[in-house]
């Protein structure tokens, strides 16, 4: 009897915790969308931000976010992929390799505020890059490197060895095998990694704040400061000026993340289907 009661209580707890998790998600989504979506219109999306002039749109933040994302990916994606290739295809187990892997784990664990502090002293002050798109992008590039390397490496390792052996047996050398056989089979996985990184970049605040700065302008060069959408939301929330705008910015951020998640899921599914040959 007692056994049965415990059984029921545990089952109830398992169900309710899962339902609670889902409920929290929907509470956040529902509340932010309900309050924010009505404020999103073409005018809000396409005017710049100058409250003194009555302009309260997010155009420059959208462009700023996209520019920062583009520049970060430009630096980080090649470096991340090549690093993953080395780790997956060339590296032999050694002390040095464990150190390398440990440093990647460490980079992944460093909180974004510390990336902000580092980016500020190193890129902004020491290298004299000022608060700029470039400072922000270089800082974020280091930050997303672990995510890129790990996801890409997993993908490369899931490419069957028979592919490599077949190519080598046909007389192709290692490099040709890598670029003609292994990398093409890994492209969807690498895409997933890139899409997940985009999400990280869009949502990042602390590290951007102290490196790319906060000036709400469309950056015309990599040396100019800009303000991303997430940093803008932080400003609006902290100042408590206009909640409608803040809700709208939050809603846009969530929509972007949701779209990126769907895209990542889609590429992953495509990859699985192709691998299993269905």
């Amino acid at each position: 009897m007692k056994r049965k009661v415990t059984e029921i209580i545990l089952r109830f707890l398992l169900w309710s915790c899962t339902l609670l998790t889902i409920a929290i998600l929907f509470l956040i989504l529902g509340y932010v969308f309900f309050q924010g979506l009505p404020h999103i219109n073409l005018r809000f999306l396409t005017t710049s931000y100058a409250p003194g002039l009555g302009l309260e749109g997010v155009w420059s933040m959208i462009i700023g976010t996209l520019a920062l994302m583009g520049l970060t990916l430009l630096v980080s994606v090649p470096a991340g992929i090549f690093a993953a290739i080395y780790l997956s295809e060339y590296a032999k187990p050694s002390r040095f390799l464990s150190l390398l892997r440990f440093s990647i784990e460490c980079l992944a664990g460093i909180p974004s505020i510390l990336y902000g502090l580092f980016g500020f002293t190193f890129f902004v002050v020491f290298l004299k890059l000022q608060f700029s798109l470039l400072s922000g992008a270089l800082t974020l590039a280091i930050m997303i490197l672990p995510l890129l390397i790990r996801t890409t490496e997993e993908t490369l390792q899931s490419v069957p060895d028979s592919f490599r052996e077949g190519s080598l047996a046909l007389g192709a050398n290692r490099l040709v095998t890598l670029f003609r056989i292994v990398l093409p089979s890994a492209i969807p996985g690498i895409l997933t990694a890139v899409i997940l990184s985009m999400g990280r970049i869009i949502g990042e605040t602390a590290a951007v704040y102290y490196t790319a700065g906060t000036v709400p302008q469309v950056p015309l060069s990599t040396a100019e400061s800009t303000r991303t959408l997430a940093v803008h939301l932080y400003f609006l929330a902290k100042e408590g000026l206009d909640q409608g705008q803040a809700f709208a910015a939050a809603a846009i951020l969530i929509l972007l993340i949701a779209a990126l998640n769907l895209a990542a899921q889609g590429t992953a599914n495509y990859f699985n289907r192709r691998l299993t040959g269905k």
Partner: protein
Amino acid sequence: MKLKKYMTLGVEKFFWLCAILSLLALLLILGFLLKEGLPPLFSIGFKSFLLGQRWKPLEETFGIFPMIVATVTATAGAILLGGFIGLFTALFLAEVASPKAARLIRPLIQLLAGIPSVVFGFFGLVLIVPWIANRFGGPGNSLLATILILSVMILPTLASISETALRAVPQEYREGSLALGASPMETLFKVTLPAAKNGIIAAFVLGIGRAVGETMAVVLVCGNRPQIPQSLLDPIRPMTSTIAMEMSYSSGLHQEALFAIGVILLIFIVALNLSVNYILRGNKDL
């Protein structure tokens, strides 16, 4: 022919160079944070910095003990609450839910994990803080608000890593337990859960790291008063919030002291990572 060989060699060296970028970046980060943060630790004094009760930048008094207490209590609360819900969600997804239900729920948890921290902070500020103020009194910006927001933020990480650990438990363990007459729940809590122990502990340690380092969500809901909280409803100011709040206008010794807080945070995070490494290595021996 020779040229081709050199090119191949060059490309391989280039891959290697990209791989050691991570190590170089880590060394740069450590180097620069220590360069800025260690000298003030010595000039202020470790003891008066770590155990000092008062943080008064204008009087050049820098004691971060209340912030350490704030970080520790907020993290502990979040790991208890978020850890419990996250672990049970993982158990449900890995062992109880039908494959179809799990496939439906998993993307939702990923979405929760992907929501930017500043959105969590804003949500806490407009909904949870007023709710606490109305329901329990006080300013609303409090230890409780911080714990609630942090719990939600670490929950998806905990759930997904724990689920992976649970799924890695060999099916024979479960079958053996069931064949011996144990009920599904007994099997789950007495066989599967202990078998996935290392992975789950690693998930919790990572969750602690996330809670300790979280900044933008916390700074919006914690109340930012550097005091030792006497109750759940008191405003607090964790270490990360102090850096985020004051970095933009600080200078001189004040700014150096903020870097010193960064160094303390860094030491904490590296220690956590070392312990995860140690725990996971233990896992492989199983």
